């Protein structure tokens, strides 16, 4: 522990809460996290496969910046467990775990990441700009600016007489942006059915939270807007699940927004190719990986055994490889169509 910003990982004992959860729910949470990780490991493999010699970010089957969410799976799994695809999720530039957990079609998402015609955006969006009207999923490459449109989705759902809600995700670095504060204020004042989720992975690219943020917990900032704020330590999926249950219920009941901050873990770099020379907490980061930790916990609770783990992992691999194959087989968009879809 050499920097103040370094993760303060909870031990499994600390990472309590939700011990009374239904085993089926616990398995689902585990399964979602495994699928997300398996998926991103495959994206990682494909991303680096043809970047060389050396590392050319613009080369390869997956060009451009790539922000992977490995380590942050508990946030998406715990929150999305309470949602249906009628609810909206607005994720960040690091969106895959939320897309996976919210049920975005893996094939079309992967095709988009590969820049193919069958992608969610026909190759116009890329991995930071995924839009799926079927699951009301979107994400934004601009820090904090995904929050305001989420308010509008919540507004529309409420006006349409439904109990659908919007979940808006940012990182902890985004909590210092104006859009974050404007959105909390407006959503609170209008009692919009929004759950604000802050993923505190300790790092805004290379700047630690302690160097950027005036409060220890962004959950405290919720109080400034008169809404509940809750911080979950330990990157604990069941803790997230519990907090999200309360926040989602409150939003669905028309009682307005809540904020959940999860102290999570950016297991890999800000982007692929980030050597993370600034980061002094990496040495023990793998031991805080939430997936093996949760697996151990579930095994100890008798919820998981070898056979189930194998089944879940191979199902995740199958779905992932199917999606990758689909993407690779999808045509590259016709360059002549580059100017299409500017206007409806």
């Amino acid at each position: 522990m050499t920097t103040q910003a370094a993760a303060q990982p909870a031990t499994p004992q600390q990472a309590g809460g939700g011990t009374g959860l239904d085993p089926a729910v616990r398995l689902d949470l585990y399964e979602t996290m495994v699928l997300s990780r398996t998926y991103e490991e495959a994206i990682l493999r494909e991303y680096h496969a043809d970047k060389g010699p050396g590392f050319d970010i613009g080369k390869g089957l997956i060009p451009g910046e790539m922000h992977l969410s490995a380590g942050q799976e508990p946030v998406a799994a715990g929150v999305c467990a309470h949602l249906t695809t009628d609810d909206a999720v607005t994720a960040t530039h690091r969106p895959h775990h939320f897309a996976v957990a919210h049920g975005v079609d893996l094939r079309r998402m992967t095709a988009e990441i590969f820049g193919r015609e069958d992608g969610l955006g026909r190759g116009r969006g890329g991995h930071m700009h995924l839009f799926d009207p079927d699951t009301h999923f979107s994400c934004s490459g601009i820090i904090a600016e995904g929050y305001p449109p989420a308010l509008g989705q919540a507004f529309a759902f409420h006006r349409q007489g439904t109990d659908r809600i919007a979940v808006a995700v940012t990182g902890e670095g985004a909590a210092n942006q104006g859009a974050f504060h404007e959105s909390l204020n407006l959503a609170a004042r209008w009692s919009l059915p929004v759950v604000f989720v802050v993923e505190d992975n300790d790092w805004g690219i290379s700047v630690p939270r302690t160097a950027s943020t005036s409060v220890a917990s962004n959950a405290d900032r919720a109080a400034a807007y008169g809404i509940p704020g809750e911080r979950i330590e330990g990157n604990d999926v069941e803790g997230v699940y519990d907090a999200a249950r309360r926040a989602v219920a409150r939003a669905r009941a028309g009682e307005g927004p809540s904020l959940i901050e999860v102290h999570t873990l950016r297991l890999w770099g800000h982007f692929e190719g980030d050597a993370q020379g600034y980061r002094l907490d990496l040495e023990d980061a793998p031991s805080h990986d939430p997936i093996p930790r949760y697996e151990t916990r579930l095994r100890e609770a008798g919820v998981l055994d070898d056979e189930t783990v194998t089944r879940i992992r191979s199902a995740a691999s199958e779905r992932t490889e199917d999606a990758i194959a689909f993407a690779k087989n999808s045509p590259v968009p016709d360059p002549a169509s580059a100017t299409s879809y500017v206007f409806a």
Partner: protein
Amino acid sequence: MTITETPTTPTPHSRRLTTSKAIVEAIAFEMERDPSVFYLGEDVGSYGGIFGSTGGLLDRFGKDRVIDTPISETAFIGLGIGAAVEGMRPIVELMFADFMGVCLDQIYNHMAKIHFESGGNVKVPMVLTMAAGGGYSDGAQHSQCLWGTFAHLPGMKVVVPSSPADAKGLMTAAIRDDNPVVYLFHKGVMGLPWMAKNPRSNDAVPDGDYETPIGKANVVRSGSDVTVVTISLSVHHALDVAERLADDGIDVEVLDLRSLVPLDREAILASVAKTGRLVVVDEDYLSFGMSGEVVATIAEHDPTLLKRPAERVAVPDVPIPYAHALEYAVLPRQDRIEAAVRRVVAG
């Protein structure tokens, strides 16, 4: 508030309305017709819009559909975007175009790009209204037009009406459009009771429901000697100049573009092909804007259409000054337009 000066051309199917009343009429009609339309912005409720864009709507449609927001443009413009994505048709007012900077990310990175980034799978049918323009000593942060900036950024239509009739028809078209439409109203054309009266800002407006197509320019005055291509309040100034020059035997054609995006390049080419002379008048900044785009349209298509070099009358790349004399020196008003027209017809 309606100014009831002598109607010039009263017909059974039109009345004289100020531009602001005409805009409100279009919005009210669409709100009546389509329950998904709502209006959102600062002081749009009981105040009726600082520039009269929502007068009376609150009484008629209630606070659930005519909604006062906090002074929080990023949040409420973004809210409009999200609501539009989910099937509503918001009209969101940014009080002054000058304030675009505090919320530009929502406008150009989100509102304008979502349709494209989604490969056409997500539509953002919203109207973003705002007041533009100077001429009343409101200073450098409250007098800009900036429509060229919006027009430069892809993914949004940019509409700038000049007359009450067009203001109504273009607003109707904007609300019904499946794309984001930036609808700029120049304060000087609204017919506001607390500003210098422009006689053309109180004019005949057809009854009932009609659309003025977005992207189709209008020859507001036909002429044979010189084409003045312009937009919004400058249309009125150009017409003043045309009337004055008619006495000197100079026949000016005035083309009101009505929208910058889409830009009716065919109308520009057709008019210049007829007159052979071009003056572009733009109350926005001179460089990298509408005036350059219009001249480039000729240059790229057929520079030989011009018998004389084109003239541009715009704000000479300076912030809008406060003092009346300084402001009038940089705005493209009648004196500068007349001088430019006389120069191009002299050769």
